[in-house]
């Protein structure tokens, strides 16, 4: 207890340590059970979440690996196909070359002369026709009609074109 120095303004005893009060609480068994259940559920859920995350991670990694494998396979297939394309293009060029050689003007002429017994056309076999007085195209002058005639013609043209569009 602190000494009283004649004044009550300061009650220092208030600041002195006091023994703690011991409260005897009543144990609530129902509450405890609930708590335990909640903890168990929480624990189960945590485990489940962990498993799910792990499974998801494994699945993602697996898919990535699988996709890499697939990509590699496809890469291989593309390479094979590209090689095949190159080879076939080369073969096409070789065969075209052979064909060009066989169908060259020289080969065709030799075959026509020697095998088929053909001959080149002679100038006497060409018949020339005089074109001075035949097959002349005549363009008709535009008719000079009245306003009504021109309007009638324009309307007729319009409907003709319309009919053509919806034909």
């Amino acid at each position, binding site marked *: 207890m602190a000494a009283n120095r004649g004044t009550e303004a300061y009650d220092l005893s208030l600041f002195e340590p006091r023994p703690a009060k011991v409260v005897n609480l009543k144990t609530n068994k129902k509450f405890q059970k609930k708590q335990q259940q909640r903890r168990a559920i929480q624990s189960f859920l945590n485990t489940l979440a962990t498993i799910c995350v792990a499974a998801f991670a494994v699945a993602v990694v697996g898919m990535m690996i699988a996709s*890499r494998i697939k990509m*590699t396979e496809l890469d291989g297939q593309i390479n094979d196909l590209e090689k095949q394309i*190159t*080879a*076939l*293009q*080369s*073969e096409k*060029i*070789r065969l*075209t*070359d*052979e064909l*060009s*050689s066989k169908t*060259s*003007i*020289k080969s065709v002429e030799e075959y026509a002369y020697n095998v088929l017994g053909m001959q*080149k056309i*002679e*100038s*006497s*076999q060409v018949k*020339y026709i005089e074109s001075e007085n035949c097959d002349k195209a005549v363009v008709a002058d535009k008719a000079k009609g009245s306003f009504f005639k021109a309007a009638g013609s324009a309307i007729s043209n319009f409907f003709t074109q319309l009919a053509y569009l919806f034909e």
Partner: protein
Amino acid sequence: MQKGRNSKATTKAPTRQMWRRSVIVLALLLLFCIGVTAKLSKIQIAQADYWREKAVDQQMSDSITSPKRGTIYDSKMTILAQSATVWTVIMSPNNIKKEEIRIKIADDLSKLLDVDREKLYQKTLKTKSQYEVVKAKIEYPLATELSEWIQKNKLESVFRIIEDYKRYYPLNNLASAVLGFTGTDNNGLYGLEAYYEKTLAGKPGRIVTAKNGWGDDLDIKLRFEKTIDAQDGNGLVLTIDSAVQYYAEKYLEIVVKETKCTNRGSVIIMDVNTGAVIAMATKGDFDPNEPMTITNPDTLAKIALLSGDEKSAALKKAREEQWVNKPISDYYDPGSVFKTFTAAMALEEGTASENSKYYCKGGLKINDRYIKCHKAGGHGSLTFPLALSNSCNPAFMEIGQKLGGSLFFKYFVGFGFTERTGIDMLSESRVTDLLYFSEDELNVLNLSIASFGQNFKVTPIQMITAMCAIANGGKLMKPYVVQQILDSDGNIISNTEPVVKRQVISESTSKRISKMLADSVNGGGAKNAYIPGYRMAGKTGTSDKTDQNVASNTKNVVASFAGFAPADNPKYAILVMIDEPQTEIRFGGTIAAPVAQKIMSEALPYLGIEPVYTEEEKAAMDRTTPNVTGKKVSVAQSMLANANLKYQVVGNGDTVLRQVPEKGEVIPKNGTVVLYTEEGKLSETTVVPNFIGKTMSQANIAAANARLNLQISGLGLHSSEAKADSQSIEPGKKVPPGTVIKVSFVYEDQIE
């Protein structure tokens, strides 16, 4: 224990010597550290680039990918040269462990790949080697067969089949001297392949990949790869037309063989208005698919007799000779063809006109030298056009002298005879002043000789370019063979436009000289080049190879013809040059002009030039036999008479059972159709006489006696002096009466 240690420390303190040793060891360590630091600094800083490169080399594999070489097309987009993937077989003898495998490889592959067995076996013995080429550039079917063989024998570790490119020339020899060829490394070595190497080659690509310690590719997960795609080469579209080129080569080859020509022949056909080369032929030539193969059998036979170095040298020389593109690389004395230019110079300068007169008494004495005309006895009195048409040397010496050296040289330069034409081709010959007389050297004698085309040299390409200037109104064009450059997708990158170098003569002079040249073909010295309906113009030439003849005591000549058609509206010019014909008659008019006639007869209709016949030509034109078989004899007779044809009836029947010639066959005007009216007479035959060497009237009589029809070719309208040089059915053969025999006539008059 602690006590003992302390006492030891106090008793055994480091001595001076120990200190000294320690200092020495430390110093040595310091020196070592300095050395190591210095070396590291040198490697890391001073030689950083070198070692980085080494490291990259060790860790990375860098392979070059070849670009595809550009395609070459003719003017109608026909492929003349193209590249395709092929495969090269590489063997790694290092991986062959057993002798029996070596034997199997040698046995099987020598048969499969057609290689020498012993050489292949020797390659398998190079056990330290990992790279031996077994066969280069095999094609797809063989590569497939080889792959199967490798898999079957489990020799994947021994063989690799790597991609490469091969150049294909589908039309074989056609235009080979123009195209040239590529080498084993796909680089152009000759012709356009070499001249346009940068355009055609493209840019190589690269593939950089990481590799492991053994030099193999890394595992797929660790693989690093960077690819820079190769850039394919650009394509060329030529001005050459493969059909016209074929016509040129076909007839040139025949004449080179027939005349036993020893220094090859060449033909150039050029568009006179643009300078575009439509055909450029050389015979003998080579197949660019097999450029190393000697094509001339005579040369091959000579080489076969040699051995060792002599043989190798002869082979090399023969190959180089056959690769030469004669039209742009060889020089020749132009001879009388050059009179065209002397005439043009004189007309342009007014020192001569169509009315100028000359007198030829068979030669002309200049200083102390007498120069003969080709016509012994001389031409007598001549006008200017006749002097050109008859190719009179003395007249042209006089024309040249009147013109003078200075003006002659001015036009000689103007026509481009002192410079390269600038054609876009490899190895156009250099033109030096050693090949012609300079202005100062043109004294009276030299000028006189040069006026008729001797004692100086030109290239065929110079000659035809100058002839184009005569034809096109006087413009000297720059010749070219590449019309367009295309990128690898076929888009046009560049297009060649015609270039006029200069105006050499006026348009009116061009027209005047063209008319004279047309007259020369129409009845003058160049009449063997006459084509009905096409108004050819041209000049023949037969030049002595003077320098060579003097040196080797020979009498070789160059027979040539240069001309153009149609004369009144020139489109295409042609030059035919036969170098060293070995036949008895070897004038340009006899040898070269008929070649030009045959080529242009096929080329002009193909090139879209329509014939325009004169009334005289129409009247002389052959007929087509009408169909009278199955008709009453009287009807047949009337039909034939209406067609201006004669007839002869064999048998006493009243219906025509067979006719000779048959319907649609060509028959000459006033020809005879034989009409058979009895079965028993159908097998009647007559013997074909020998027409060779006969004049036309003699041949007509022989044909009439044998009851045959004569179809004449190779003749102009003035045919009395020509002689038959070939016939379509050989003499002595039995044929039905009335059969049409095609006989070709040529003029053998000795006009150079």
